[in-house]
């Protein structure tokens, strides 16, 4: 998956039940059990070839790659939310189903400042559905820019993961920022703060686009369009 070297291969199956905890309602537990058919930990990037980072905010010693077979791909976000909460390390989850499509899920996590044993999920990103067998533009972009060898910022496991996260966010939102394609080749990922700002702006544009549908008057729509334009202009400034 995503060109991760074989030396990190784990290929360990998990019982889906281990992801069910007391926070879930019986109804959610049932839905989860019905949806998930198989969970495999494919890879685990450990060791210090890509350095770990441990401080007050992060504890990133491994990056996990899961392959999760779902009965129906539309349950990806429901299952992804539960799994990412339970899996404390940074994790890439690929959901797939027998219809031949897959969806990637990444979550940016930090430590809970009150309880360092707990994590807080700041952001989650899902790719659009990608065909696993037919030529697919989105899949090509993911392979081309998010594959293991393509990640440029290897300062530590957090920067490595966040580069994947940012690129996935850009690829999933090319409809709101067409110059995102150029951004995939930019050097914005060398600076995690700038990457985070890119993600923040993309999320803001998504929210504004949603708001655009809710307002009725042209003036309100134009005001929102103006804000979107301003965000896009800022984003374009990151393309170096």
């Amino acid at each position: 998956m995503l060109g991760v070297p074989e030396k990190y291969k784990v290929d360990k199956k998990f019982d889906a039940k281990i992801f069910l905890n007391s926070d879930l309602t019986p109804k959610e537990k049932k839905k989860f059990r019905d949806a998930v058919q198989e969970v495999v930990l494919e890879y685990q990037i450990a060791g210090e070839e890509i350095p770990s980072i441990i401080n007050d905010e992060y504890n990133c010693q491994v990056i996990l790659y899961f392959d999760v077979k779902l009965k129906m791909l539309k349950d990806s976000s429901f299952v992804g939310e539960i799994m990412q909460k339970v899996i404390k390390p940074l994790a890439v989850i690929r959901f797939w189903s027998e219809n031949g499509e897959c969806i990637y899920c990444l979550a940016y996590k930090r430590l809970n400042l009150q309880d360092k044993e707990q994590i807080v999920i700041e952001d989650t990103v899902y790719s659009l559905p990608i065909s696993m067998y037919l030529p697919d533009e989105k899949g090509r972009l993911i392979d081309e820019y998010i594959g293991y060898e393509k990640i440029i910022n290897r300062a530590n496991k957090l920067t490595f993961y966040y580069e994947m996260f940012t690129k996935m966010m850009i690829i999933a939102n090319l409809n709101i920022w067409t110059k995102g394609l150029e951004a995939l080749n930019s050097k914005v990922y060398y600076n995690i703060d700038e990457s985070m700002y890119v993600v923040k702006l993309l999320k803001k544009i998504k929210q504004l686009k949603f708001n655009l549908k809710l307002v009725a008057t042209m003036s309100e729509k134009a005001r929102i369009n103006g804000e979107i334009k301003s965000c896009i202009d800022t984003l374009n400034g990151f393309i170096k």
Partner: protein
Amino acid sequence: MELKKISQEIYNPVNENVKKLAKLFPAAVKDGQVDFDALKQELGQFEEVGKEKYELTWPGKTLAKQLANLDIAGRTLKYVPEDSKNPETTENLYIEGDNLEVLKLLRNSYYGRIKMIYIDPPYNTGNDFVYKDDYSKLKEISDIEEGEVSEDGERLIKNQRSSARFHSNWLNMMYPRLKVAKDLLTDDGVIFISIDDNEVDNLRMICDEIFGEDNLVGLFIRQSKIGGGSDSKYIVKEHDYILVYCKDIIYLDEMFIEHDEEYLKRYKEKDKFGRYFWDTFARPGLKNPINYDIVAPDGTIINGDWIRSKERFEEDLKSGEIRFVKKDDGSWSIQFKQRLNERGKKARSLTTNFGGTIEGKQDINELFNSDKIFSYPKSVKLISNLIKLLNDSKMIILDFFSGSATTAHAVMQLNAEDGGNRKFIMVQLPEPCDEKSEAYKAGFKNICEIGKERIRRAGEKIKEEFKDKEGIENLDVGFKVFRVGDTNIRWTSEAIKSGQIRIEESSATKDALDFNPGFTDIDVVYEIMLRHRDFPLTSKIEKLSHIGERTYIFADSVVVCLEEKVTNEVVDKIAEIEPKPLKVIFRDSAFDDDISLKINTMNRLDVQLKKHNQGKEISYRVEFI
């Protein structure tokens, strides 16, 4: 000694008879005209009383009402970049033209968006020029009005007291303007109108009718000058008025003016809730005394008339708002914290410190080194005080009798002082300056030139005065200038209808077919913007040079494509715009008479827009001119 000029009037027997009649029966002559019903009543002949109703009426009132509702066809606002200052960033406007036309044109873009209107209309002193409106559109009355426009067609006429319609002319001017102005106000919007004794009663009555009696906020009596007046025959006038109405009193916030330094001196103490002073709790001599016993710290029972109820006293005592102070004679003084209302104090109808004529002249003098550039300017202090009453640092303020543009000056000054972001819209008819006037000698041909120059100079002066204040570089001292003019767009194919152009020639002269002579692309874009509801005229216009030489976008949302041919390349590039436009406007003539071409082009636009939106549907509109 009074130096009288030779009367220009020639003996008019009818006028003389009317004057004699007025001497005998004042009630039978109204505004220079005989009221025959009133005359009959004076002579003891009473008609049926069923027709009577309470209202102010005058000759031309119905027409004035009609005029307010008459559509503004064939007119628009043309951008004047050479007179504008900081047009790329400013949110202020200066509009030259008949204010009734301007108000109607603004009704589309600014309907319900103006929080404050201040006007200083002609006081109708007998020498004022008033607007003579063009009633020609109202066919049924054109005959009546014939001959009332000055010979050279000027619509600004001198309304002399000897005129048979002295008050009516003034009311006919004011009524439609106020009626349209009301539409521009926000629900909590307020209009302030300066006026004096000449028309205050009439103005109040028409405002009661237009805004509703319940929406009268108040009437300020402003001290306009002190001293002088030896030329007054009876009583020296030292005041004028500011009549205040709101759009809907239900939404109107309370009004406060800031405390003066003297008043604040009393509030010496301060705690976490703000400033206060210790005031005596006892209030002997109250009309309805609140009498009860209070037990002092040493057990003494004090009976008295108090300012607050027993329940309130007990609450305040617990919360530390009350204290007991032992006086020299051993008795107790009970005191409470009289708190300062941080928003200010309630405005009082009698104002002696709102700034008068002298301050107004000083304001002008500081900018032009002469106080004779403009007669009777209102002071910046006056307008600032009125603006402060509304407690809104982001509102739009309109002045459609803007004169020397004191309102704009006050808005910039106040924004500099309190960091506000108020915007102004000044409207003024370019009344020519008298050739003998100081203003004319100084190079100002009309009042608009004075107003614009004042804003330029005042803006720079304010920036200099506040140069050390943080953020002053963001102060908006710019303004976009517009001028009322004829429409740029041939909204119907009148050029063809009128035989100016034959349809077969149209492909060679598409501009002549679509636009009026003298148009510019920018004028057309502004005109289209003006016809879109709720887009302020200060909205940004960008030329999309990468698409074509005649394609623009305004407010980041509406694409106006004035290209004579709409090619696939143009369509594809429009579809690539980010964020996606809400509307795209093409010229009908760009497709000639080819319906298939038009449909194909629109289909292509749709497909391309979807493609750039990852195949998702996108909501947009296409319109044609």
